[in-house]
């Protein structure tokens, strides 16, 4: 009786979220898998099954491969650049000031900088997109090109040159993400006992040595989490690319990504079945990435 009451209590709390989760997350997933085997157009009342045809088509679809290539670049560049910058800044904010008085401290004014770095995170992605439209505007009215113009450089098509567009967008993603990871890593660094640093400093370790021998190893778990989040962000980018570049991978497929392609295929071209097949592919890509990252970076936890 006692047990029943206890489990009843627990179950009572779980019922609502589990039902909501099943209806709004699990069931659409299952339907997406199911629809990926059909040629449904989004309107028809009859759903025709075509087996694995959609997946066969996917392998021959150059747009799909171009999207994968771009996701590959994002996956390599976005986490590394963001984490390196965020680690550097949070090190400066927390430990860069060296030992003064009791324990380590950040560079002068670090409390102020911490707030400033977090600003981009507060802005909605659409706002960031519109903001950077003005920054990247391809004539002299653009923020960047206005500065270049004064230096006598011709306006650059940041978002219209095929070789530049993706990098310009990655720069925005990094800009927006860094502040958050500065805060995340700062929290991680705050958890590292001060005496470690003091002991190392007494032994004559410089700031670089402190960072690589003490901070980084003890921050490993936090960095790993950041890595996975950024990896998942590399499979997204829907809103930013939609606002900054457009929905057709312009210029020349340089900004083609899966989420936008799925959206267009389903709702503009009415190939819902095929779009679901792309969604299923994206699902497996994301899961594979997360599992791989967790597996390859797993190791014994260091007890502080």
């Amino acid at each position, binding site marked *: 009786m006692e047990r029943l009451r206890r489990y009843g209590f627990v179950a009572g709390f779980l019922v609502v979220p589990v039902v909501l989760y099943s209806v709004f997350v699990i069931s659409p997933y299952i339907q997406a898998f199911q*629809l990926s085997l059909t040629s449904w157009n989004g309107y028809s009342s009859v759903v025709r099954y075509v087996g694995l045809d959609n997946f066969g088509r996917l392998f021959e679809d150059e747009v799909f491969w171009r999207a994968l290539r771009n996701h590959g670049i994002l996956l390599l560049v976005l986490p590394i650049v963001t984490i390196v910058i965020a680690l550097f800044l949070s090190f400066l904010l927390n430990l860069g000031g060296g030992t003064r008085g009791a324990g380590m401290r950040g560079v002068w004014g670090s409390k102020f900088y911490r707030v400033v770095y977090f600003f981009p995170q507060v802005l909605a992605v659409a706002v960031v997109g519109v903001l950077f439209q003005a920054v990247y505007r391809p004539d002299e009215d653009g923020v960047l090109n206005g500065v270049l113009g004064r230096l006598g450089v011709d306006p650059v098509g940041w978002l219209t040159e095929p070789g530049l567009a993706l990098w310009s967008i990655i720069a925005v993603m990094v800009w927006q993400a860094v502040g958050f990871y500065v805060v995340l890593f700062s929290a991680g660094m705050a958890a590292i006992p001060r005496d470690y640093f003091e002991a190392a400093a007494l032994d004559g370790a410089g700031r670089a040595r402190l960072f690589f021998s003490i901070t980084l190893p003890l921050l490993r778990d936090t960095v790993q*989490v950041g890595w996975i989040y950024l990896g998942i962000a590399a499979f997204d980018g829907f809103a930013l690319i939609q606002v900054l570049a457009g929905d057709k991978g312009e*210029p020349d497929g340089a900004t083609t990504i899966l989420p936008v392609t*799925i959206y267009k295929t389903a709702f503009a071209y009415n190939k819902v079945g095929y779009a679901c097949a792309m969604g299923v592919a994206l699902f497996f890509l994301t899961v594979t990435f997360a599992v791989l990252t967790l597996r390859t970076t797993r190791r014994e936890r260091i007890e502080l």
Partner: protein
Amino acid sequence: MTHPGEITRRQLLRRIGMTAFVAGPGAGLLSACATAGTGGDPTAAPATSIAASADPKNPFGVDAKKPLEVVIFSGGYGDAYAKDLHEELYKKAFPGVTIKHTATQQIGTQLRPRFIGDDAPDVLNNSGPEAMDLVALAAEGHLADLTPLFDAPSVDEPAKKVRDTVTPAVLDNAKIDGKDLVLNYSVSHRALWYNAKLFESRGWAVPKTWAEFTALGEAAKKDGILLFAYPGQKGPYYQLWNVLYTAAKIGGNQIILDIDNLVDNAWNAEPVKQAVTVWADVQAKYGDKAYFGLDHTQTQIKHLQNELLFYPVGSWIENEMTKDIPLDFQYAIAPIPDVTAADKMPYGAIQVGVGENFVVAAKGKNPQGGLEYLRIMLSKEGARGFTEKTKNLTVVNGAAEGVDLPAGLISAAKAQDAAGENIITDARFEGWYKELFDYGTEQINVVMAGRITPEKFCANMQKKADAIKKDDSVAKQTRSQ
């Protein structure tokens, strides 16, 4: 971007799941309706066939007690023409009737589930970036047959049928799979638009040949003005139209008909290549690559500031920019200049097309009311009011008489008179094969920027057209005129 504090692996996996879910927005929308289905077999023919009587007051037998639901795309035309005019006229004809009016820009998101769930609004203005696929809706029997509407007596002259009061293009463009299902309501004139006052003050004449056109480009260059520009962001389809209309001017409307009908090698036709070549050349010599990154509004503002001479667009431009037009600017239309001495269509040919789709739901609650609403729209009073409110012409013959039209629209009307029979047709693959059209709007930027040759552009387009032709999941349409 998500905000983890400390997260466990289970939370992590859940978040991965959620991200993938967000990434595939299709999944969420489908859950309600996808495979639940409505049960019955799809009916290819419209479910309701409404007979039109000769009663000019109420030919479709509208029940005044039944409410009517109208959904309007609130884009460039706004929705006041429906709310304050057509719906009021409908209420006057059927006192006491209630009308539910909805204005939205998310046509597809809001209405796709309702059509599938047989809960469609009676009248729908299917427009904008999220417009629904009418061919797919027609295949499911969701669209009411408009034949009774076209055969009904007109509101103004009961002796005349509605079909005799509208421009003939309406009837041609109404057809999907051979049935009259769509009413195109507005008329637009597309060609090159320029500032008549600037030309007057500089003593420039509108160029009639390509040599005059480029000579003007040289003259304008000296004043720091571009001969031509189009918006590479959001509006590259203006240039795709422009190139297609130029091709039709060189080789006749058959060029566009062949492209629409997916005829083999239609894109590789010589006039298409010529048209692409001359425009890419103009871009290279008299254009500015900055415009590849500007959107339509930014480009149109620059046009109003006399930074460019010619802008390829339709007659809605004047109303679109009406708040920003300076005193020294007056919109006027210029036909595409003669490209060769032997163009199939003489100088003066412009594109005149019908647009702004209205459909009546066949399985809605009040299809009779829907048809009657369209009949009221096609009355002189309804059409004149639309022109007054939107500064755009309608398909109703003579409805704009006596309306104080703005200068640009008058110039378009004069250009149409001058063009006479030489009217360039619209390219319908824009609605029929959206994937091909989207690809074209992307490729036109590439060829105009000089990253591929015109030959390569034509070959790419042909390859895509061939792929569409082979794809049996895409329903095919044909046209003969």
